[in-house]
């Protein structure tokens, strides 16, 4: 009874709910990327982009609830500062997805088929990275060692995104003969921004890993 930690359990529950919402954002985003690569119209893309934005807004609401709960006294202050930062880091995943969705709508450039293929693969690999991250998070609060172990798995998934990002960039600058200089720069920036979502996921996993280590002696 004394060890139950009602407030702490509530925070973990909300964090899990937050992550589920972030997953929904990334699923929408993945769908948007696929539709874009399959030749969606500009108006339809705008609609899809708005859907990503709405999901991100819902995630934001949960993030605020988590932080309110934490400030009401969940976890000792020494650990609390970490738990306050985690939802912010996770929220960044969704914020980046929203930003890219908006950029895609605004730029709306025609991509070569090879690059479309790379984008589909990168987007799918990001979703895999996020799912590995969620698997890792599911071990909280009961399995501190598993959380630490799984943060390495997230890192492995992120490396896959890195490789795809590199391959896409090599294609843009070395292999492609149809894109002009400006388009190449725009495509390069697009690939970087999309692949960066995986970096944000990895950073959040590393931070959670650090928080778990902090809680051990």
């Amino acid at each position, binding site marked *: 009874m004394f*060890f139950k930690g009602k407030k702490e359990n509530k925070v973990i529950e909300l964090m899990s709910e937050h992550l589920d919402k972030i997953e929904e954002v990334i699923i929408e985003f993945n769908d948007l990327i696929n539709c874009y690569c399959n030749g969606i119209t500009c108006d339809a893309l705008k609609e899809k982009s708005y859907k990503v934005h709405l999901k991100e807004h819902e995630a934001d609401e949960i993030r605020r609830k988590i932080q309110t709960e934490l400030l009401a006294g969940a976890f000792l202050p*020494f650990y609390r500062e970490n738990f306050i930062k985690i939802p912010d880091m996770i929220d960044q995943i969704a914020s980046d997805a929203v930003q890219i969705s908006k950029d895609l709508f605004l730029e709306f450039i025609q991509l070569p088929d090879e690059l479309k293929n790379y984008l589909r693969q990168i987007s799918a690999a990001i979703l895999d990275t996020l799912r590995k991250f969620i698997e890792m998070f599911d071990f909280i609060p009961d399995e501190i060692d598993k959380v630490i172990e799984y943060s390495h798995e997230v890192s492995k998934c992120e490396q896959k995104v890195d490789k795809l990002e590199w391959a896409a960039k090599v294609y843009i600058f070395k292999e492609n003969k149809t894109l002009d200089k400006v388009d190449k720069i725009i495509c390069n920036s697009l690939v970087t921004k999309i692949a960066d979502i995986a970096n944000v996921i990895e950073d959040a996993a590393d931070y959670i890993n650090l928080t778990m280590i902090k809680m051990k002696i």
Partner: protein
Amino acid sequence: MWQLIGGIYLGWGIGANDSANVFGTAVSTRVIKWSTAVIIISIAAILGSYLQGGPTVKFVKTKLGEIKDLQQGFIASFSAAVTVMILTILAIPTSTSQATAGAIIGMTLAFGGSPNWAGLVKAFICWVFTPIGAAFFSVILFYIFQKFINRIKNIIIINRIVLIGTLISGAVAAYSLGANNCGNATGFFYQPESKSILLNNLNILALIGGISIALGALTYSKKVMLTVGEGITQLDPMSSLITVFSQGITVWIFAIVGVPVSTSQAVVGAVMGIGFVKGMKSVNFKKLFQIFLGWFSTPLSSGIVAFIISKIFS
């Protein structure tokens, strides 16, 4: 009986200053509220003084010098208080226990009595072993806690254990503070031959000492607690609770031995012990030198002050 005021004032100072060694970190890092902390300190210190404070009361009265009557008790306690106040104003780290010992010896010499040098040597040995003992206990406790905590996989349980551990270790340290330091407050006034129960009963005198410590904690500890606590917040909560627990055990052992010691010096030793096992650069030679210097300078200063005040009064 008014002479007891000198001792009560000393006890009040102990409560106001040394509460920081018990819950300073926990309060400054908002693990617990100041009000909760001082309530725990007050209850535990009063309990400690009443249940186990007798030997230190007896030691202060009988093992250092000759305190013939209440007047002399007042002179010694007043001198110790003045010394602690002057050294604090000069920002020189000091210990009430060491000031008490010096004051009794100075006063005894001034009235032509013979100090108990063997008692002083015993006290000195205890003072030296206070930081050493606390460092030793913090190393041992660190390994025990490490084994225990690292077996627990649930972060919520870890969080609760640290919170409960902080409260328990604080209560232990406050109990020890009461048991060990109550003698500094009222040991001067122990009169076995007196007809007054306030003066002839070790436990009652120890209780008065404990109550004065509790009063200090309740009325004037907040500022010191926040200042001292913030100074050592680089410690994580687990290390902090081990530090406080080690300090409590060490001071409690010396309460059983019957010699008042410095809780601040115990904390310094415990922090160094933690630093040693955690591989941090924690050996603060300046602090060690201050402790070393304090073993001599505090009793010497209070001895001189007591000698002068005694001569004026006589």
